[in-house]
């Protein structure tokens, strides 16, 4: 009896199955069972391999067995990926089938047929495994309340991936909706280890909130590749190490090579094939590849039929590939959580360490890799910054609510502000969002006769959908993930995947490029299909994918600074890196942990200013633009700038004499608005906002708008709105999004607040060793889109005029 008291799970229906498998319960599973049983909402933090999925289902299964033949929906399981949802079903199936438990469960994602969905709605299983988007859809149906009124648990898997983006906002609103339908609902979150566990708790839990945590004591073994080659100053492709990477693949049974961008994946894959003398089975995996191709690679991976897969973050989450022996990370880790997530893909056994090798592609990345390894040893993880929820998601949620039936706006408002991201949502903003859904929310009342929702005459608080046809429009536009305009690539009749429209526009017939590991020749483009054929060409382009760039995390940036300031370089770095840093020390300075080094020197005919901020590239990019304006104001005649994760370089015609007067907090207040105005950042985010808030449709029933058309009309709308109604809620929303995501406003603000007292200014006669990498990156023009357009037109015209003159002289 005593034993049962200390571990109540020994009486659990699954205990027999655990015993048969010779598994024992983890402490966090026992704790979860206890706390959930006594009415707590919980978040469970545990590493991969610690039975996380099962942990979520312990209480639901116990309840369902006790309730005997419970009819209807009891538990909802939310997974971040469709593919993971299928995997969960397979994992759940094993114990339930083997123990012959009377519990029904089904997956519900965009991949299942409308017929199945319909059946599911009429006769729901006990457990549904789904995604945030499918949940939003379920909540928009007219019978949502009856469907969910007996719901007992909602389990959110991989909750750490949901905390800081618009999907999180959407999910949080829908959880509150469910809580209204079923007040007894309990919440269970499952997460990888996090630094700010309290934040995750605040985000999810309402009833007797509880954190349950299980830390793995076995640390992963991570090292940096010991290379005989020269590590380049600059660049991101790791070409120097390709032979050594190949040797590492040969040493292990199964290797995953993680890279940071899709372009790097294609490039790495191609280079490995060029030296693949042993005929190793190497595959490539990234998010733009056709689903079938990806599934094939994943299948081969789990069956151990390949030797190596080159992958992007597309393979970071979920599926258990038990046989992966080694992870190779090519390029900077960028964040500690991210590196841990990737390293954890190898060796799912908790008692043996995962193995990983880091390949820095340039010298700064070497320091970053080294710093990341240190922090993993110290268990110093990145913080996930919770953000205030976005307005456009609320608008979409209002539309969804209207689709499910008439609603009272004060009830809805009260419900929404229970969701953590919307605690501070102002009633006035909420009302504007109601108006946005009603008729666009414009000051000029032109659309009175064409409303989408309307107030009841007898009760002004109640709103109702004008006609049921609108529900279809909502359903075609649900979700918060907006992709760049993409085109499908066809080789013969086979679809290979999607490619950015912008890349294809720059190709002419006959040009070759690499995709899905093959060299392809561009033939034609018709109706959003890009027809290609195989090519033997050796010169080929690599598609660029925008948006794939992750900024260096604040936490890792700090440890890079700490590491850099250490004087025992010989113990830390190979000779080539030590030499580089020593020379920097002699010629200029290596900044201390809290110092901001600024170097200035003449080069060719211009004057250069390099500022080492280690602020990540979003913040540095913004700072560069602001400084450009500051320099202009002081009449230093700036010509351009380039930013990366670590530093910014600006070049100007005149010597910049008073950098301290410019580089301070005043810069942000003075120039930020102008900057946002001039670059296309807000305009681009406006497009996402207009689509998410259902102001413009991404898809119309029966026809798919091409990305180009959506982009085009949203640009026009933005321009008209900006001019006539600068206070419109969607403009405000886009501006807030820019501040939150694109320009790293808070991070920049923190740095600028204290920077003026910590600037170390070095006037040099020529370029310093530390500045070489960023100087090498100077190759792009830094003109705003508007300027670029005019520049291209003018330049082209001049060229043609020149040509014409030559002809007439001849």
């Amino acid at each position, binding site marked *: 009896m005593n034993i049962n008291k200390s571990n109540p799970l020994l009486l659990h229906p699954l205990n027999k199955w655990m015993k048969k498998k010779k598994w024992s319960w983890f402490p966090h599973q026992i704790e979860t069972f206890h706390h959930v049983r006594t009415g707590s909402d919980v978040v469970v933090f545990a590493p991969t391999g610690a039975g996380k999925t099962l942990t979520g289902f312990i209480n639901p299964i116990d309840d369902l067995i006790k309730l005997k033949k419970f009819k209807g929906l009891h538990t909802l399981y939310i997974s971040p990926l469709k593919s993971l949802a299928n995997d969960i079903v397979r994992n759940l199936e094993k114990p339930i089938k083997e123990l012959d438990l009377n519990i029904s469960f089904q997956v519900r994602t965009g991949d299942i047929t409308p017929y199945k969905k319909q059946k599911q709605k009429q006769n729901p299983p006990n457990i549904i495994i789904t995604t945030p988007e499918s949940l939003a859809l379920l909540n928009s149906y007219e019978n949502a309340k009856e469907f969910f009124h007996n719901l007992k648990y909602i389990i959110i898997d991989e909750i750490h991936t949901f905390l800081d983006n618009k999907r999180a906002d959407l999910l949080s609103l829908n959880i509150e909706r469910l809580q209204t339908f079923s007040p007894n609902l309990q919440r269970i979150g499952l997460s990888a280890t996090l630094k700010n566990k309290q934040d995750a708790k605040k985000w999810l839990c309402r009833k007797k909130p509880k954190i349950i945590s299980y830390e793995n004591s076995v640390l992963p073994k991570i090292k940096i590749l010991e290379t005989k080659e020269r590590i380049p100053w600059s660049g991101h492709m790791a070409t120097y190490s390709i032979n050594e990477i190949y040797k590492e693949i040969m040493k292990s049974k199964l290797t995953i090579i993680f890279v940071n961008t899709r372009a790097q994946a294609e490039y790495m894959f191609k280079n490995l094939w060029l030296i693949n003398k042993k005929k190793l089975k190497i595959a490539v995996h990234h998010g733009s590849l056709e689903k079938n191709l990806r599934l094939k690679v994943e299948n081969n991976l789990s069956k151990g039929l390949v030797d190596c897969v080159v992958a992007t973050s597309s393979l970071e989450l979920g599926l258990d590939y038990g046989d992966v022996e080694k992870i190779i990370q090519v390029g900077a880790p960028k964040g500690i959580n991210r590196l841990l997530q990737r390293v954890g893909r190898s060796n799912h056994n908790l008692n043996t360490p995962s193995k990983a090798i880091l390949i820095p592609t340039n010298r700064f990345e070497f320091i970053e890799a080294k710093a990341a390894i240190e922090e993993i040893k110290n268990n110093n993880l990145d913080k996930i910054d919770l953000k205030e929820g976005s307005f456009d998601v609320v608008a979409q949620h209002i539309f969804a609510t209207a689709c499910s039936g008439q609603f009272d706006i004060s009830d809805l408002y009260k419900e929404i502000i229970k969701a953590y991201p919307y605690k501070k949502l102002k009633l006035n903003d909420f009302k504007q969002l109601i108006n946005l859904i009603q008729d*666009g929310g414009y000051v000029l009342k032109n*659309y009175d006769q064409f409303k989408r929702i309307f107030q009841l005459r007898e009760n002004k608080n109640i709103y109702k959908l004008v006609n049921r046809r609108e529900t279809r429009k909502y359903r075609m536009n649900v979700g918060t993930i907006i992709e760049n305009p993409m085109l499908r690539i066809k080789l013969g009749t086979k679809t290979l995947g999607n490619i950015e429209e912008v890349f294809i526009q720059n190709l002419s017939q006959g040009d070759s490029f690499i995709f899905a590991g093959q060299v392809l020749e561009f033939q034609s483009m018709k109706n959003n299909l890009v027809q290609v054929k195989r090519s033997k060409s050796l010169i080929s382009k690599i598609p660029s994918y925008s948006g794939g760039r992750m900024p260096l995390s604040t936490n890792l940036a700090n440890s890079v600074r700490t590491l850099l300031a250490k004087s025992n370089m010989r113990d830390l770095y190979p000779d080539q890196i030590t030499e580089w840093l020593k020379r920097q020390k002699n010629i200029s300075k290596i900044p201390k942990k809290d110092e901001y080094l600024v170097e200035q020197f003449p080069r060719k005919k211009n004057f250069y200013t390099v500022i080492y901020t280690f602020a990540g590239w979003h913040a540095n990019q913004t700072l560069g633009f602001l400084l450009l304006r500051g320099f202009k104001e002081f009449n230093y005649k700036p010509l351009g700038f380039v930013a990366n994760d670590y530093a910014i370089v600006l070049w100007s015609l005149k010597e910049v004499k008073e950098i301290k007067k410019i580089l301070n907090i005043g810069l942000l207040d003075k120039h930020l608005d102008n900057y946002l105005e001039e670059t296309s950042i807000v305009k681009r985010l406006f497009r996402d906002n207009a689509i998410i808030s259902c102001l413009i449709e991404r898809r119309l029933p029966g026809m798919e708008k091409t990305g180009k058309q959506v982009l085009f009309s949203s640009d026009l709308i933005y321009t008209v709105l900006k001019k006539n109604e600068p206070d419109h809620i969607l403009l405000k929303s886009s501006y807030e999004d820019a501040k939150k995501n694109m320009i790293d406003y808070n991070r920049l603000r923190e740095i600028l607040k204290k920077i003026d007292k910590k600037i170390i200014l070095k006037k040099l006669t020529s370029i310093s060793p530390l500045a070489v990498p960023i100087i090498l990156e100077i190759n792009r023009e830094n003109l705003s889109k508007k300027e670029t357009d005019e520049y291209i037109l003018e330049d082209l015209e001049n060229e043609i005029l020149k040509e014409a003159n030559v002809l007439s002289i001849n």
Partner: protein
Amino acid sequence: MYYQLINFGDEEFYAYPNKSLYWKRLNTLIVSDLHIGKSISYAKNKQFLPPYDTKEILNELFVSLDEIKPSNLIIVGDLLHDIFSTLSLKDQDHKNISQYMENTDFIWIKGNHDKNIQIEGFKNFTNYEIDKFLFTHIPIETPLFQICGHYHPKVKIVHRGKTIFKTSFVHNEKIFILPSFGILTGGLDINSKEISDVLGKKNLNIYPVGQDKVYKL
């Protein structure tokens, strides 16, 4: 206003960056595809575009009329987006239009969008002939030089690795197509089948419209 001189059918025309065309010899201003009230007609399908297009289009037109003071204004079709568009013309708009009509003849050639709509004071035509020129919305079989609209031409320019699309004036030897004067109107690639069928692919004169200038390719 900065303009681009275009020779077409042995006459000189001025192309303005606001997408209007001026025939100086006859003091005639030509515009096309204004699609006034597009926003309101989208609103009936619950696509709530900003309702400021009518105001902005009319303002732009009035600026041109003030500056040029033409004897004739020829609209080569699709002045209105559809029958709902008249809802977006307020009393004040009608008053303003009447005032301009005192000095300028408003010649409205009907397009596919506004075939059956009437507005007081406008003279309606299916097409309109001056000298050896025919003004029509969609080109027809004729030995005359034609000035028309309908297609909203834009040109794709690939230069130094960058691709941009620009609204354009375009003509071949016999047919001139104006860009759309509207503000929520999209465009059609000059290389598309629809425009090629009319203009052919060779010997096109293309004039992309920039911020404050009309360029020549």
